[in-house]
Each structure stands twice: as structure tokens, then as C-alpha cells.
């Protein structure tokens, strides 16, 4: 589904990714770990098509197509979703109107009719109850004055509504208490199936107790330096990243 080959990129002239390789297949859950400043979030931004990141070398393939040149919205239409580490507050735009616009723009791009209000409402009800979201919350301005937990739940709610094929979750656990973490992780696990793929970016192993990955990758200095199964995450939890840094040398 996603194949990243020797990806290098720059932001404001500074090199950040220095040859990342990653293969994600349908039905898989991958975790990307790494210490602070190891460019984990950069990878998420590059996959979802942030304009500020310039790919200088290497390729991004999604469903066998090269997507280096596609805009963020085109990638979204094609089924790529990114949950933001810091979701942006947008005063004056309600969660409901935002989600309606997002769903219908994607449908428009795929040549489908707009979703009927009735169907939309039904889906909103179903997905919001899944994430324990109060419907009152849906008529509030997007992320404005939301707590950290509400913002992250809202991200996963959007994912559930948009039903992407590839979901990249950037630090979805940061700022969550354990109860919120369980709700969010449960939402992700319910979303995950044989036809989609999830890439979870996280600092801590904690989240991976609930979102169980098939593969774990460690990024350091702009490269994937180690890949393994979920036991790798456990090892990092116990020993930190220092042994990997030494191993790399």
C-alpha cells in the first residue's frame, strides 16, 4: 500500500530525512518510534503532502502510484489520512460543517454525489458514539478551546468518518490520560481491518499496549535504523534508545 524508497527531504534548506525506507501492506499496523527530534513527525507530514517539505531524493509510492507530486488534498482523496500531533483550532467553523465539507470534497473528487444529510447524520452519530463524543461537541468550533484529549478524539473521529485506506497517526497519545488513551486506541483498533493500514508514530511503548503493531521501526537522524516486531518496542521501553545509537555506530 505504501512504499517509501530512499526518501530524502529538506525544509527551509535544512536536510531532515536522509534515506528512509518503509513498506506498509494492507491490513498491517506499523509503529514508528524514535527519540525527540528524530524526524518522526516529518515523515508523517511528507506522506500527507505538506508543501513546506521538499523531497530531494527518493520516492513515495501509494497503491503502486508515485505520489511525490500530489497535493495534500489529492492524497486525501486517494485515501491517505494523517492525525495531527497538534490539531489546528479554527474558530467559526463547526466540527460538523468541517467534516461535511471534507467528506463531500473527497466524494466530489471521486466522481460521487454528495452524501445526503440523513446518511451524514447517521454516520456522525455512529462514529461519535464509538469514540464517546458528546454530540454537543460537534456544533462547537473545530478544536477551539478543546482539551488535549478532545482534540485527539476529534482526530480519530475524523478518521472514522473519512474511512481512509492509510492512516498515519502522529503522536496520537501525547496529552492523553489513560482513559482517553484507551478510547482513542479502541477507535483505531475498530477502524483497522484487512483493507487498510495504520502507521502509528509515538515516543512511548504505552500506546502500543492498546494499538498492537505488526511491525516496529526506529527512526534516528532521519533514517530507519532498526525494524522488528512488537518486542522491539518493549525493548526500547526497558532500555531506551541509547543502545540503538551505539549499535548504529
Amino acid at each position, binding site marked *: 500500500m505504501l512504499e517509501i524508497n530512499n526518501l530524502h527531504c529538506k525544509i527551509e534548506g535544512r536536510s531532515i530525512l536522509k534515506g528512509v525506507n518503509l513498506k506498509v501492506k494492507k491490513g498491517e499496523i506499523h509503529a514508528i518510534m524514535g527519540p525527540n527530534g528524530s524526524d518522526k513527525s516529518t515523515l508523517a507530514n511528507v506522506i*500527507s*503532502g*505538506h*508543501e513546506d517539505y521538499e523531497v530531494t531524493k527518493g520516492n513515495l509510492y501509494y497503491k503502486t502510484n508515485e505520489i511525490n507530486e500530489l*497535493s*495534500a*488534498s489529492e*492524497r*486525501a*482523496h486517494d485515501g491517505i*489520512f*494523517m492525525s*495531527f500531533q497538534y*490539531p*489546528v483550532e*479554527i*474558530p*467559526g*467553523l463547526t466540527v*460538523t*460543517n*468541517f467534516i*461535511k*465539507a*471534507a*467528506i*463531500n*470534497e*473527497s*466524494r*466530489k*473528487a471521486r466522481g460521487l454525489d*454528495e*452524501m445526503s444529510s440523513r446518511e451524514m447524520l447517521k454516520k456522525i452519530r455512529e462514529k461519535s458514539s464509538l469514540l464517546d463524543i458528546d454530540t454537543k461537541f460537534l456544533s462547537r*468550533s*473545530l478544536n477551539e478551546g478543546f482539551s488535549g484529549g478532545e482534540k485527539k478524539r476529534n482526530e480519530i473521529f*475524523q478518521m472514522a468518518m*473519512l474511512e481512509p485506506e492509510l492512516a498515519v497517526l502522529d503522536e496520537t497519545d501525547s496529552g492523553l490520560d489513560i482513559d482517553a488513551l484507551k478510547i482513542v486506541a479502541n477507535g483505531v483498533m475498530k477502524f483497522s481491518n484487512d483493507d487498510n493500514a495504520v502507521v502509528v508514530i509515538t515516543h512511548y511503548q504505552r500506546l502500543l499496549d492498546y494499538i498492537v503493531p505488526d511491525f516496529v521501526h526506529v527512526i534516528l537522524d532521519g533514517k530507519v535504523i532498526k525494524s522488528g516486531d512488537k518486542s522491539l518496542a518493549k525493548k526500547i521501553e526497558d532500555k531506551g534508545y541509547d543502545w540503538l545509537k551505539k549499535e548504529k555506530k
Partner: protein
Amino acid sequence: MDFKEKLLDSHLAFEQDVDLLHPIHDYRKKALKRFESDGFPTKSDELWKYTSLASIIQKDYHLSPTSESNIELKDVKKYFLNDIDSFKLVFVDGIFSPFLSKTTHDGMDICVLSAAISKSKYKKTIKKYFNKVVPENESLSSLNTSYTREGAYIFIPKNMEPEDPIQILHFSTGAQKSIWLQPRNLIVMEANSNVQIIERHQSLSDHKVVTNSVTEIYADSNSHVDYYKIQNDLLTSSLIDNTFISQEKDSNVSVHTFSLGGQLTRNNLRFYHKGSNISSTLKGLTILEAKQHVDHNTLVHHAKPNCESHQDYKGIFSDSSVGVFNGRIIVEREAQKTNAFQQNNNILTTDKSKINTKPQLEIFADDVKCSHGCTIGQLDKQALFYLNSRGIPEKEARALLTYGFANNVLESVKIPNLNKRIKKLIAYKLGVNLGFDL
């Protein structure tokens, strides 16, 4: 002969058609003298520093239509708010159209000023209110007064309220290549009365039209007025809107101004407080492009204690468009416990667009709460990416952010049909069709 001279000379011809013995003719003559000595405002006037009328007063305009123009309902129906048969005062090239209008004298008067001037039963009201809240030192208002003949006349007696909003619509047909229109509206609200009014000026062809309009509103105790101005005219049209509001105790008046179209628009909006516990609301949403120019010049004159005023103006400027916001608040010594709020937020989407914003507070009382603020910025790039990443393309994302930015001005529009209509105008203006009712 320049246009000012033409206006002075043509007054003789104008006088042939009006009742020279009516008391308001003294106001006309006095105002003409005032206009003769003051002339059109120039950039050296402090209140006109950022707006020049030079481009619109160079021309030689017709001051009245040469013949009555026929327009049909189908030509203008789309500008009516709803299909239901609500009160409408429709003027075509400055002349009242009974055919397109719906007036009443049943329990309240919703009719035209010319009728109110000519009929003796209105004499008392006209004498009591006409030109009483118009300041002498605003020369464009003087010019309008000197040519007073036609406009809306609305009188809502004690405890009354029209069922539906009243629409005042001015159409210009282009029967003359260029025309200078000067409608004059008088709105008198007795105690405990309520009204909602929507005013719109619309050209039906791309001829040159300038409207220099004066509206006087008298809101007696505990009356409630919601006034909505839709300024979405063609780029060949200009509007100078002079609106003066006199409020008595416990009254509540709001004016919303939606400035989306037109070449040059100047809004002189003045509130004068005559009693305590008054609430005044001034809201504006300006979305401009090309070389459009909109100037909001507001004044709230707090003269009595325990009153509040709320000003909230938002602007979005593209291409080489220019905005001006000059918001004056005066708080007299007597006006203790005043709560005056003013906010002006702007987004510039290009390097060539421009906003001049100038809050002006003159406070002579010592126990008041006054706040003001202005911002000038761009659409947030990270917010754009957030929307893009959800599948909302660039243009639509910009429109949604703009809509979000403008939304609190829309929220207070209390007429659902109007709210929908304005959202549609905004979506159209932003060139998008979004998946929900914008």
C-alpha cells in the same frame, strides 16, 4: 462646469417639482447653502483621509431619470428575500414603483417619504423628526437634504411590530448612462415597537451610478430595530450611505453592513444616545477584490449612563482592494458605566490589498469600560494544510477559513432567509460550492 456647480444650478429645476411652502423646504435651502460652502469632502478632511471621491465626482451625472423605466418583476425578483408577500418599498432610478412594492397604512405606515411630505396628517411627525439627527457638518448629508424628495417612510406606533422584515430596494436600470441618486429614508419607532429592515441598492446594468443616501432612524424607549444593509452591487456602482440613529432609553438598535460589491462604498454610520440603558450594535463584514474600496466610518456617541455599544467589523481583502475602518467612540462626562467595545479584524490575501484601520476613543467619563482592538493578518498556513490534508482543496479551504473568520458577524443575523442568502453570496464571492449550506 464641475459637478458641484451642476448640483447647485440644478436645484432651481428641482424646486419646480416640489412644494416650496412645506416646512422641509427650509431644510433643503439651508442644506444647499451648507453644501455650497462645504463642497465635497477631500482627503484633507480628517474623516476622509483614506477615501477620495475624486474618481466618482468628476463625471457629469443625471440627477433624475428622464423617463420612467419599466422593469418587470422577473427582472428583480431574485433580489427579494422571499416569495412571501412581505412589505417592500421598491424604487427604480429613484422613483417609487407601486407595482413592485407592498405598502401599508393599516396600524402602521410603511410607505414613501413623498407621500408623507404631501399629506397633512403626517406633517406633525415630519416636523418633529425630519433632519433632526443629521449633523450639519457632513456635506454629503447636506447635499442629500437639499434634494430631499423620495425614499422610505416607516412609522411603527407604540407596541407594534410588522410581521415580516421590511425590504427597501433601490434599482437603477441604466436608462441614463450615468445617474446620481439621493434617496432619503425616515424611520420612526415609537415606544416598545419592533422592526427588521433590509436595505439593498442594485444596478441592473453596468452603467455608472452613485447613490448618496441618508437614513434617519428614531428609536423611542424600549424599541428594537435590526437593520441589515446588503452592499453587493456591480463594480460600476458606488454608494455613500449616511445613516443616523437617535436612541432613547432602553432601546436596542443593531446595524449589520455586508459590503461585498460596488466600486466605492462609504458608510457613515452614527449612533446618538439620548437616554440610559441603550444598546447599540454595529457589525460589518467586508469581502473585496479587484480595485474595490470600502470605508466604514462609524461613531457611537455615548451621552447617558449605563449604555453599551458593540462594534465588530471584519474584512477580507484580495487583489488591489482597499478597506478603511475608522471607528469613533465618544463617551461624555455624564455617560458613567458605559460599556463600549470595538473590534476590527482583517485578512489581506495579497501584497497589493490594503487596510487602514483607526480606532478613535474620546472618553470624558471616569467610570467606564472601553476596549478596542484591531488585527491585520493572513490566512493561517498550518490551518490551510490541516484542511487540505482532510481532502479540502486549496480554494475551498481558503473559503472555509474565510467563512470561519467571518462567522461571528453572520451569527447575529436573526432573519434565517437572510442569513442563508448572505452565506450564499459569500460562497459565490469566494467562488466555491461547499458540501454544506455555506
